[in-house]
């Protein structure tokens, strides 16, 4: 891997955001961030990350809406999205996949598992 993988982290919780940025950086992944769905869509256009880690419960525009909109936008619809959420029910997983997410991870995040998911989607 000559070039670092770049990930867009969409997370409104300050602690969780800070923690994930640092852990992803340590794993050799570049991180850009957004605090809500609206900003996430803007960042996907600006930064064209290779993967998006999207929290679902977000202010302004939630993760489901943002994912759906991303899938309707031709310039960014190829960017894979991993849903990150504390909603752990099976129905929530289906909701996320239905909204256009490619994968799904529940909080608390199993970090090695998350890295595998990212790698799978960037290969």
């Amino acid at each position, binding site marked *: 891997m000559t070039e670092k993988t770049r990930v867009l982290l969409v997370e*409104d*919780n300050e*602690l969780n955001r800070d*923690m994930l940025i640092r*852990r992803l950086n340590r794993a050799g992944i570049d991180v850009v961030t957004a605090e809500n769905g609206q900003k996430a869509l803007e960042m996907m256009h600006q930064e064209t990350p290779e993967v998006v880690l999207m929290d679902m419960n977000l*202010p302004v525009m939630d993760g489901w809406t943002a994912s759906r909109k991303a899938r309707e936008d031709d310039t960014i619809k190829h960017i894979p999205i991993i849903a990150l959420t*504390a909603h752990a029910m099976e129905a929530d997983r289906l909701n996320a996949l239905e909204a256009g997410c490619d994968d799904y991870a529940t909080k*608390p*995040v199993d970090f090695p598992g998350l890295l595998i998911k990212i790698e799978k989607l960037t290969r």
Partner: protein
Amino acid sequence: MSLRRRLILSLFTILVLFAINVGTHFWGSYARSESMVAYRDAVTAAQLSAQVEQQLDDQRQQILVLATLRDTTDDQLDSPELAQAEQDIRSIRGNISELGELSPEVTELQYQRLWAAGGELLDGWLAFYRNYNDPAFDLDVEDPLPYLEASQRLKELEQRQAFIAVQRANIIDRTIALTDRITVIGFFASIFLTAMLGFFLVRYTNSSLKRLKRGTERFGSGDLNYRIDNINDDGELGDLAAAFNTMSDKLRNAIYDVQRSKDEADEANAAKSIFLANVSHELRTPLNAIIGYSEMLHDELDDRDEVDRPQFQRDLARIVQSGRQLLSLINDILDLSKIETGKMSLHCESFNPGEVLTQVCDSLAPLLKQRNNALQLPDFSELPPMYSDATKFRQIFVNLLSNACKFTDKGYISVAAGTVSGKDGWYEFSVRDTGIGMTDDQQAKVFDAFVQADSSTSANYGGTGLGLAICRDYCEMMGGKISVQSTEGEGSTFTVILPADPELAHAAA
């Protein structure tokens, strides 16, 4: 009309017709017997008349012969012959009076004439016999006039009686014909009426029964709003239909009640599931930070010689903060669960609400300073004491004031308290801030569990989203209520109204 009355009426009508027939029959019989009597009278009268005529004729012949004999001979009549003659004349007189007894009312005139003429004739004849042996007596019996007169009167009486007999016979014939006709008409009328009554009875009863049957079928097949209408029957079937409709109403209401209870149970069940999902979600958020930071620190310790101590401490503080948030969340969930299962009870004691409020404000002074807020706290010493649950009272205002501190930056927070004018024994408390405020939609559900202005709120401001739900439940337990008024961007005012004694409030309600 009721079935019973219909049957009774039918029976009565048939009986009346039957009575008419029977009456007509007796009338006919009576008319026939009358005709027999009249006929017998006529025959008797004819016989008697003939007999009297014959007797008169015989007597006259005998008297004429005797008169000739007397003129020509001197023969005397002996007493047996005289007695015989008198006997004969009495017999004629008796027969005439017998004639008078036959139909006396319509032959009176003729009879009186006959009686006068006959009497004169017979008197003459009697005088003839009695004085027959007296040679000095002049017997004048050859004159035919009295005899002819009497014969004429006898004939008149006879004719009269014959006329009367014919007239009566005609009347009687007509009567018999009439009674026969009445009997036949009555008979057919009975048959017709019975058939009609039967027909209508069956028809009306049948249509009512059909409606009842249809109603039962429709209701039975689940059409709970179906009612039997147009029952023009105020009798047993109408009553039955009305009873059916009443039963239908009650059944429908019962079914609706059951349905509503089921819906409520389903709703409660769904609410529980949502609550559980929310609990799971809310527990995972701080856990994510705790586990994430712990794992990260673990990794950092593994692969670095020098630990960035200040950074390490900040991270540990974050873990502790998240852990505390988790603990308070669990405590709140337990409290809420206790309230909702009815296991939370009030422990009432006498306390001074002003004092408690002042203590709460003092204890929250560090939180107040965090965001540079100023607190306006008036003097509460005038407030009368309450008899209520002081712990819950304190908790309500800790929650409200921490919220006010959390959602306000460099602003003012004011607490007000007083008694409600016009409502003896009620207090009104309010906590006002100049913070971020809420939209109308947010205000509408701010007291629901796990609801904060939006999901980033807990991230940016902390809190579990259960505090206001607990405040609302506590207020209600203590017999009062809580409300909010807010403008987005300008601030919020939470108002709590509580009775001095929850028992009195519950008793009054």
